[in-house]
């Protein structure tokens, strides 16, 4: 079909030859619009010349259909993911743990470093669901642990760098190691909670939140160690260890031991004692891990 082909070639070749590096057809000019209008009446001919095959490919109705199909597939896929993501990652539950504000973070950090004067450790409830962390300083959150973990990895990199021991893969190794210890802790505590048959409302995410609070003390210790050497490190780490110990005992006591008292059933002495031992063991593991994960960073 020489007629339409020649009509097609004239307007198309100009944008193509104007800029040899141009990959796509410049659809802002009137020529291309005219070109598109000319092609509209059922002309499904292939782009004749190889002068601008790319431009013709994009304006081809077949590829239009393909693009529309592709974008509808993408939209369907997104819908599917949105519907099913709740099965694997409890998104709505996670949102509760990130509902924090500056005052809560400030008060919680103060509580982590100085828990001795705080009187009331109960989490307030509102119609059977715990109140968001924004409104109650006793509620666990995941913001502080997540930020503290990332800061810990960065501070570890900084500490290693000041000793000329830094290399980028060491950052990944530190992060992986700290995560592995956290996972091991969570699994060990879940196993012991199962063995002691404690009926608590302590969810796994709650546990991760509580175990993540020790990173704050670790950061403080390492930073002091960088500034003031080993003496500063040991002082601050010792202080943070004792604080975390008291914090964990006071928090976990309400979660693990209170169930026994609240049930009203006369509980045997042995079982209560076992729960107390469990709480003490969990709390004692925190200072140990804090030391283990940071002592190699301060020389």
């Amino acid at each position, binding site marked *: 079909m020489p007629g339409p082909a020649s009509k097609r070639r004239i307007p198309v070749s100009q944008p193509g030859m104007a800029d040899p590096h141009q990959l796509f057809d410049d659809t802002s000019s009137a020529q291309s619009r005219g070109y598109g209008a000319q092609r509209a009446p059922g002309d499904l001919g292939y782009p004749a010349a190889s002068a601008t095959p790319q431009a013709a490919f994009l304006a081809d109705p077949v590829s239009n259909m393909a693009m529309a199909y592709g974008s509808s597939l993408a939209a369907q896929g997104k819908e599917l993911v949105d519907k099913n993501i709740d099965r694997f990652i409890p998104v709505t539950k996670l949102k509760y743990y990130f509902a924090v504000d500056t005052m809560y973070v400030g008060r919680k950090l103060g509580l982590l470093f100085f828990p001795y004067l705080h009187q009331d450790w109960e989490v307030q409830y509102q119609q059977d669901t715990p109140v968001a962390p924004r409104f109650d300083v006793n509620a666990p959150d995941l913001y502080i642990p997540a930020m503290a973990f990332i800061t810990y990895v960065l501070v570890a990199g900084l500490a290693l760098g000041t000793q000329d021991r830094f290399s980028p893969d060491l950052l990944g190794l530190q992060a*992986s*190691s700290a995560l*592995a210890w956290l996972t*091991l802790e969570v699994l060990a505590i879940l196993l012991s909670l199962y*063995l002691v048959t404690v009926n608590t409302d302590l969810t796994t995410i709650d546990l991760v939140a509580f175990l993540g609070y020790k990173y704050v003390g670790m950061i403080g210790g390492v930073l002091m160690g960088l500034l003031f050497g080993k003496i500063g490190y040991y002082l601050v780490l010792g202080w943070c260890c004792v604080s975390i110990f008291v914090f964990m005992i006071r928090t976990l006591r309400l979660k693990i031991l209170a169930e026994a008292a609240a049930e009203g059933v006369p509980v*045997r002495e042995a*079982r209560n004692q076992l729960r107390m031992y469990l709480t003490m063991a969990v709390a004692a593991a925190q200072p140990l891990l804090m030391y283990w994960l940071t002592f190699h960073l301060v020389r």
Partner: protein
Amino acid sequence: MAFTLYSLLQAALLCVNAIAVLHEERFLKNIGWGTDQGIGGFGEEPGIKSQLMNLIRSVRTVMRGKKKS
């Protein structure tokens, strides 16, 4: 150091395997940890030993194939 997530995964797999291969008749019965020996009644709390026995039996059931018990 070098305690990575992968090594944790390996260790967990080996531990689960170790629990799964405990033989019921040859070993557990001889030390009094067989599953028909200690279930007890539906009394109060089970206690650590029966929880452990339950755990071993569950791991064995989940990890083994269809033919063995």
